[in-house]
């Protein structure tokens, strides 16, 4: 696609930045709410947002760059770390937040939680089981294909997940049936405490595309413009009926694997702030004359407003009634 090969234009880049800011702003709010009432000490089961919490700070370029090519008719399947993708794909922030707070107005009426965001409106789903979000994406793509549409499914996992059997089976089946899927690997260097070098026999998962005869690409340096361009090619290919692609992005997990993770295993902690993609992109767009400080502030303020409204909505929503606990097992 020549449009993506030449890189994103100013308008698109402004949008990418805006999306990244919204994602980050969201995670900052969840971070705050999550830790607000876990004490004294840290009790994972306590507070308005209990349970495990996997935040995506640093990985916004993947979400923004990929989802910019999608409409809400396209499907996205994500992992235990789904917020940035959900937001970039256009999920309703209020219903999403209410779910994370376990409220009746949540997407899953409080049944799912942050690893189980299911949104029919944006064909978004996620799963807490490593790599097992890939196979359902095949089925969404299958339905899109059979119905003669040009809709696509994007399936996302981490680099750790690329060593799980479901990864292999999914790529082979999608390639074989030329399903309109874009497989995305977020390589943040870590699977919890295990570095990529201790989990993956090859330096780049893009190499693995050859095992299925499909295009494989790796974007280095968490570069949202490059993600946008590569994802554009992959999405266009899928829409054109030419089958799946594999896209790996070298990204960064700025925070712990989950909240409460002291990251004692992680040598590069000190250098992380310098690897934050958002100020870097802001500087780049400022240099290019696409953004200025005022615009940046406006975007952040607008994002905050949306996010805080969603948090307020969630807090105002009712807690699920224990007497309904057995509902929704069967349709």
């Amino acid at each position, binding site marked *: 696609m020549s449009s993506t090969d030449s890189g994103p234009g100013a308008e698109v880049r402004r949008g990418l930045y805006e999306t990244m800011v919204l994602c980050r702003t969201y995670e900052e709010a969840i971070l705050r709410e999550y830790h607000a009432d876990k004490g004294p000490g840290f009790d994972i089961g306590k507070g308005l947002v209990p349970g495990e919490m996997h935040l995506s700070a640093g990985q916004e370029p993947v979400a923004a760059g990929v989802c910019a090519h999608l409409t809400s008719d396209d499907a996205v399947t994500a992992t235990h770390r789904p917020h940035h993708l959900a937001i970039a794909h256009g999920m309703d922030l209020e219903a999403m937040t209410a779910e994370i707070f376990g409220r009746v107005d949540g997407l899953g009426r409080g049944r799912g939680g942050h690893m189980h965001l299911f949104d029919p409106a944006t064909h978004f789903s996620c799963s807490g089981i490593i790599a097992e979000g890939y*196979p359902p994406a095949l*089925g969404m793509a299958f339905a899109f294909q059979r119905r003669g549409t040009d809709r696509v499914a994007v399936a996302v996992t981490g680099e750790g997940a690329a060593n799980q059997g479901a990864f292999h089976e999914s790529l082979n089946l999608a390639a074989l049936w030329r399903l309109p899927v874009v497989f995305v690997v977020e390589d943040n260097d870590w699977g919890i405490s295990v570095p990529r070098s201790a989990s993956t026999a090859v330096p780049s998962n893009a190499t693995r595309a050859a095992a299925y005869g499909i295009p494989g690409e790796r974007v280095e340096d968490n570069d949202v413009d490059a993600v946008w361009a590569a994802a554009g090619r992959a999405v266009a290919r899928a829409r054109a009926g030419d089958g799946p692609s594999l896209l790996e992005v070298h990204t960064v997990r700025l925070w712990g694997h989950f909240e409460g993770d002291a990251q004692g295993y992680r040598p590069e902690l000190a250098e992380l702030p310098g690897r934050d993609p958002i100020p870097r992109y802001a500087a780049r767009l400022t240099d290019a004359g696409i953004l200025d400080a005022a615009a940046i502030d406006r975007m952040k303020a607008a994002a905050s407003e949306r996010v805080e409204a969603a948090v307020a909505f969630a807090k105002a929503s009712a807690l699920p009634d224990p007497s309904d606990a057995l509902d929704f097992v069967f349709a």
Partner: protein
Amino acid sequence: MTITDTTAPQATRRLNTSKAMVEAIAQEMRANPEVFYLGEDVGRYGGIFSSTTGLLDEFGPNRVIDTPISETAFLGLAVGAATEGMRPIAELMFADFVGVCLDQVYNHMAKIHFESGGHVRVPMVLTTAVGGGYSDGAQHSQTLWGLFAHLPGMKVVVPALPADAKGLMAAAIRDDSPVVYMFHKGVMGLPWMAKNPRSVDVVPEGEYVVPIGRANVVREGSDVSVVTISLSVHHALDVAEKLAGEGVSVEVLDLRSLVPLDREAILASVAKTGRLVAVDEDYHSFGMSGEVVATVAEHDPGLFRVAPERVTLPDVPIPYAHSLEYAVLPRHDRIEAGIRAVLR
């Protein structure tokens, strides 16, 4: 046997179980273009246990689809397609193989509806062959229905008789929840397995739906209740006929589904007879036979005039050698012994 269709079934046409099952699939596929069937060797081969014979010819390779040996991928594909409104039927060739793909089954297929607060439906059928008795060894003879039934969010139907195979399949395809449909190789009426007269029977033509969740008294009796499922229903009926000659009146209750479990039917039968024999080709412990016994005990242990018996596969992998396999399977000899034990 419950008939919900409007056109009166013709009472004369006899089919074997596999043909009855396939007939329901074909009828639903004709009626609904969103229904498709995928799995290993379900196309030209017609299913290793004749679960899809003829479907490829009628519906073509876009709706009757051979897959790679990638159960996680293709079951997951079915899950995803179902969430988009299609109605997939995915075949796991043997239930024994569920270990390579259980995650898609119980953490996805069975949980998505709940996790979504009821907003997403997963209307799919997972078909799978179960059971032993022909020396296929420890990895190809298991029934494992207790495993499936233990995990919430999926219905589990297990037809024993041809008409039920048809009617429960139609119900499964129409159900908006995931349904696991487990067919015993020994009830299918396959030409290359031991012939079993009860695997051929009258099967209604036309639309025929058996509601999921209702047990069936396949033989009424007053002395003892045999509560069972699948091939063991056939064996139990054989034994009941034999014992009738001795003046023993055996009631045989075919549960037909384990989820939902028709606990009322179990209680009604045991309330009548006071004697229970739970027969199960699945492993003894932590499974169906215990659940059946517990259902009565927690309702009213006084219903038991004598201690109930469980005739099951003991907690042992299924041996290959015929002499050993027949020693552990709940066949006629052991069912009869179980009945006699409660007749004291």
